[in-house]
């Protein structure tokens, strides 16, 4: 029984970790066709901002976490304007050289990966130069709950709740609001959306901002439980990329489903054989999933749905 509780808690923990790690990446990839290799560094910005807001400015933890998300979101918008769309450099070069110097990186997957990797090098090393190899951490809030001979950090259970809440909020934002309608129209057919009066440029900017803010919030949420060093973003990358690959084209549903499936695999194997085997199992699961479902889980669901429609 107690072992069952252990496993359930570990599953919640893995689920929250995967969903939070992947959410920002999935939105930016699914909607803009941009692979953000600086995703880990966006998480870093959120984590550092939240931590410094608590230790230096003395803000309450919850406020600090929101600040972490907001600052990262703003940084994301800046990144989008300067690097991804090249709007600001092009504005300057139009005035001085009379031509554009940068092609937007939308749907140029390989180029976007290389460019954002350059950004990630700058950010990691910049953080190391500015803040050193580590900064003071904030204490884990809420204490622990105990059952039987075990105890478990309450904060980690809160994290699972927050991850579900974020998924729901993102789902609501992209399916039930005017903004979501415009964003989805931009993904489906950029030209038609423009013709219908959607400012697609602004949609891309805001989407990148929201994806970045989610990454930053992830960093802020995990700030009390991971060590604060410039490379902290790396530990999210495997889970984030695997979840995006396994999830497939539908952003929110895909992230939720792959978080569930991969979370179960990660929790089970980590619980039985240790963290390393858990990670290997995660990769093997991803390889198997891609071998049989090349478009991920949601691509497979979409295929089933189409087949049923055809047979009707």
């Amino acid at each position: 029984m107690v072992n069952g509780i252990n496993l359930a808690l570990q599953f919640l923990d893995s689920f929250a970790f995967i969903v939070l790690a992947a959410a920002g990446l999935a939105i930016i990839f699914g909607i803009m066709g941009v692979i953000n290799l600086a995703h880990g560094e966006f998480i870093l910005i959120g984590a550092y901002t939240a931590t410094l807001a608590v230790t230096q400015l003395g803000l309450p933890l919850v406020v600090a976490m929101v600040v972490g998300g907001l600052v990262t979101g703003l940084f994301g918008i800046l990144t989008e304007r300067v690097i991804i769309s090249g709007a600001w450099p092009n504005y300057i070069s139009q005035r001085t050289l009379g031509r554009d110097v940068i092609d937007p990186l939308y749907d140029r997957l390989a180029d976007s990966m290389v460019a954002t990797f350059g950004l990630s090098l700058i950010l990691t090393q910049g953080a190391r130069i500015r803040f050193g190899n580590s900064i003071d951490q904030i204490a884990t809030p809420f204490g622990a709950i105990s059952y039987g001979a075990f105890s478990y950090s309450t904060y980690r259970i809160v994290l699972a709740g927050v991850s579900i809440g974020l998924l729901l909020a993102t789902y609501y934002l992209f399916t039930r609001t005017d903004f979501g309608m415009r964003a989805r129209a931009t993904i489906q057919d950029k030209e038609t959306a423009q013709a219908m009066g959607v400012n697609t440029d602004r949609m891309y900017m805001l989407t990148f901002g929201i994806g970045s803010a989610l990454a930053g919030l992830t960093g802020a949420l995990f700030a009390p439980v991971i060590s604060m060093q410039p490379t902290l973003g790396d530990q999210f990358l495997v889970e984030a990329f695997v979840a995006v690959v396994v999830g497939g084209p539908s952003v929110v549903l895909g992230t939720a489903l792959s978080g569930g499936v991969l979370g179960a695999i990660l929790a089970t194997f980590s619980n039985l054989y240790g963290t390393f085997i858990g990670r290997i199992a995660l990769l093997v699961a991803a390889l198997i999933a891609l071998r049989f479902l090349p478009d991920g889980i949601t691509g497979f669901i979409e295929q089933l749905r189409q087949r049923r429609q055809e047979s009707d």
Partner: protein
Amino acid sequence: MSRNSANGGANRSLPSRLRSRFEGPNTIGESRGFWVGFAVAVAVLVVYPVFGDGSQLSLFMVLALLGLSLSVVWGYSGVLSFGQVVFFGIGAYTFGVVSINYATPGGITAAVVAGIVGGGLSAAILGYFMFYGGVRDVYVTIITLVSTIVMHTFMAQTAGSEWAIGEAALGGFNGMPDIPLLTLGIEGASYQFIYNPFPMRVIGIGAFEISPFYYLVLLLLIGTYLGLRILVNSDYGRVMVAVREDEDRTEMFGYNVTRVKFVVFTLGGALAGLSGVLYAARNVYIDPTVFSLLFATLPVIWVSIGGRKSLLGAVVATLAVEYLRISMAGELALVLLGTLLLVTILVLPSGFVPWLHEQLVETRLGPGEAGGADAPDASSEVSD
């Protein structure tokens, strides 16, 4: 461009027929001037150890082989792989394990072969799963990236004594020291390439020592470069480029796209394995940092900056970037490297060497005559 195949045939001289195998639309540099320049560059590299630090340059040339492997896989076949270092590392570790267990000249020679085969085989296995599993485009990239991270995690935790193959302990983060000195040949007829400087005396310069390893690597690099030029300008190379430009169209023409990608990926793996073997042999040591995220992206940086569709670009950029990286070894080095990468990919997406070539051709022909430079990129079309 001056080559006219209708004009070719038996009445052409042997050198020009030989030369035509190295030239074609898929590589830059087909003028007489280019080959003269190439010969001069090789001559400079041959005498370089007399004046400069040949040991450092030999490391850069080893890494240039790794850059070439990515250039073939990504630049010519369109498969962006962050996993070249996986095959590089597997080649290096295989070389280490085999040579430590069989530390005789014959055993070490076999270890070199084993390292190359190890790199190729691991690429074949990963490639089989990906390409025959229908994994495409960016998902291939993500899987190669994830396998790099997993290899790093795996090798980093092999510190315990249970992680040993024969007498070779994998050693976790501490790596694998005491790799035997690279010796090629069989018992009785072998030659040691590492720590076996060759004393020379030239009138006017004086006495100096040259390292046989430097010349081994130089020979391998030139051979690989010319060999790859033949490959990418052959019929098979044209199919590779067709796959890069438009997979669906190439499939429609009756080519087995999956097999082309699989074969090229395996070849790239073997080449990365060779590079890894030489890396481990030169340093007499190998550790898991070769699987780290930074090292995994270095080949992508070299190839992007030099020009992914140019073999020469890969070699030149590897040498240049590594030289910069070593000589700026301060904490700002990575920031500058990142900025260089970012600016190159944004402003010169096709890379530095093709851009330079374009400028040279334009000045020679005069503006307006150099057609084709603005030809639309087929890969940017929407394929579905």
